[in-house]
């Protein structure tokens, strides 16, 4: 036996996934382990690849909207929004103020629903089952609102180029207010259960840390990047839609570890509730749809439109050749870039911490694979 090997272990390659419950979808990670320590992690993606970009080339703009729901299914309203924004910018369509307000409202409600699911998943992955159930109970309030207005609970197909499928039903605004009140009173409970829990802190502080420079070079965005101390929130940087007129704070945490990413989302829950209440208070009356030809043709050209989705910078690159179908459509999917540094984040940690790292980046595998 080699002298240097005494008391050490051989490296072992372990497959985590693709059916692992805490990989949030179908992700396979080929882990090289030294004992319980991660030596390297090699994510293997593509199990959910559904050719979203190729499909776009054979469908017209109206048909494709229902497909945009299906890659990042937890942020479906944001996906629809960025797609219709790209088409509208290319075609030079202006939407009505009421429509813009409702779209923003839907995006923020979707952010709430997505962050609530994150809270639950993060809890369950670090061993706190209770908060999962509570978060799903509150997420239900928001899904009920979506179900009422759009007819579906997850894949809404609610936005249209130039407008919305329909206006808000009577009584919806009141129910939304009630849901926000209920949610606001419960958010502190999640923090008591999770963010202030010593066990949770011990499992997340210092785990999966990354510096701001590295995070920027990796293309990290959204709450993950803000958890590294970079105040990069497209709602403020771009100031698109009505966000410049709204009062909210960009949540930034130093540290770059799982706990910072968690705390950013925890604070964003409160900020989103604040935004929803402001928008509800100033919701104008009027039409929601502007006339758009059924078979919309846009001039040749290209556009890169981006918004802040619950997971980060969601970009839509649309190249048109003048027909009624996109010539090329590319998604800048935030989960894709948030998952890529997994190896860098996990190296040297225990294998059990992998689960916390994956949960804290809040990836959706449908979004990674598109």
């Amino acid at each position: 036996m080699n002298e240097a090997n005494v008391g050490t272990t051989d490296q072992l390659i372990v497959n985590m996934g693709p059916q692992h419950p805490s990989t949030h979808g179908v992700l396979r990670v080929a882990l090289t382990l030294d004992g319980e320590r991660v030596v390297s992690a090699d994510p293997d993606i593509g199990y959910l690849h559904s050719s979203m970009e190729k499909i776009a080339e054979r469908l017209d703009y109206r048909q494709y909207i229902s497909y945009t729901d299906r890659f990042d299914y937890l942020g479906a309203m944001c996906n629809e929004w960025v797609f219709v924004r790209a088409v509208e910018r290319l075609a030079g369509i202006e939407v009505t103020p009421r429509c813009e307000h409702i779209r923003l409202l839907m995006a923020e409600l979707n952010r709430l629903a997505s962050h609530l699911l994150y809270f639950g998943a993060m809890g369950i992955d670090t061993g706190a089952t209770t908060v999962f159930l509570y978060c799903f109970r509150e997420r239900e309030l928001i899904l009920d609102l979506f179900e009422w207005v759009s007819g579906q609970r997850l894949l809404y197909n609610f936005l249209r180029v130039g407008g919305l499928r329909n206006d808000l039903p009577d009584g919806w605004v009141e129910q939304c207010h009630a849901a926000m009140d209920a949610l606001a009173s419960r958010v502190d409970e999640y923090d008591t259960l999770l963010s202030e829990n010593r066990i949770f802190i011990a499992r997340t502080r210092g785990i999966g840390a990354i510096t701001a420079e590295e995070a920027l070079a990796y293309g990290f965005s959204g709450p993950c990047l803000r958890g590294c101390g970079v105040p990069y929130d497209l709602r403020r940087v771009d100031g698109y839609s009505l966000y410049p007129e709204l009062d909210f704070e960009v949540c930034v945490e130093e540290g770059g570890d799982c706990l910072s990413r968690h705390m950013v989302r925890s604070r964003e829950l409160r900020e989103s509730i604040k935004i929803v209440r402001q928008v509800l208070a100033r919701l104008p009356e009027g039409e929601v749809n502007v006339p758009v030809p059924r078979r919309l043709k846009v001039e040749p050209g290209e556009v890169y439109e981006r918004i802040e989705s619950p997971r980060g910078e969601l970009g839509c690159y649309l190249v048109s050749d003048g027909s009624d179908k996109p010539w090329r459509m590319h998604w800048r999917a935030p989960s894709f870039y948030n998952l890529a540094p997994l190896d860098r984040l996990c190296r040297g940690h225990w294998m059990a911490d992998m689960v916390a790292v994956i949960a804290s980046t809040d990836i959706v595998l449908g979004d990674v694979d598109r």
Partner: protein
Amino acid sequence: MPEQEAPQPAAPEAERVPGIEPAFAALAERFGDELVAARKTADGPDFTVAPARLADFVAALRESVLAEPHLFVDACGVERETALEVVYRFSLVSRREIVTVRAHMPKDKPAVASLAVMYPGARWPEREYAEMFGITVTGHPDMRHLLLPEGWVGHPLRKDYVYPLDHPYLAPDPLREDPVRVLGHAPEGEGEES
């Protein structure tokens, strides 16, 4: 809503005219013919460079327009009528400014210099467009397939891609045949199918 006249589409933002705007004269001096175009758009600067110099060019940009902290946003491929194009995007953190760097390549032997060493975030998108468009990425540390299965033949996002319908993954489902025929719903004699 009743159908009405279409609103007049605005002029497309990205007029793809070559030429170098005076603001980028220093870069033009340094790269000569290899900087094909440089212009300002509503989103920010937009450069087209020779594919072999892409990495060098972005390194040079890091001393000028990308000197501030910036995010590696995206890399993707596009097939144009006569050429393949790769598009890289960077975004400044402090304000809205998207820096776009493009490179055009012939369709038969496309090759581009990788940014993966400078921006580790470029590793995956470069692997993705390499397999989707058949672009060779030089200087990339790891060129396995990313989304497609190992050994997949062809480049699916090319316009001339033919689906290998005999591939076991893509074989049509016998249960999903035309229901009108399966259930025998077609009426006798007349009637035409959609």
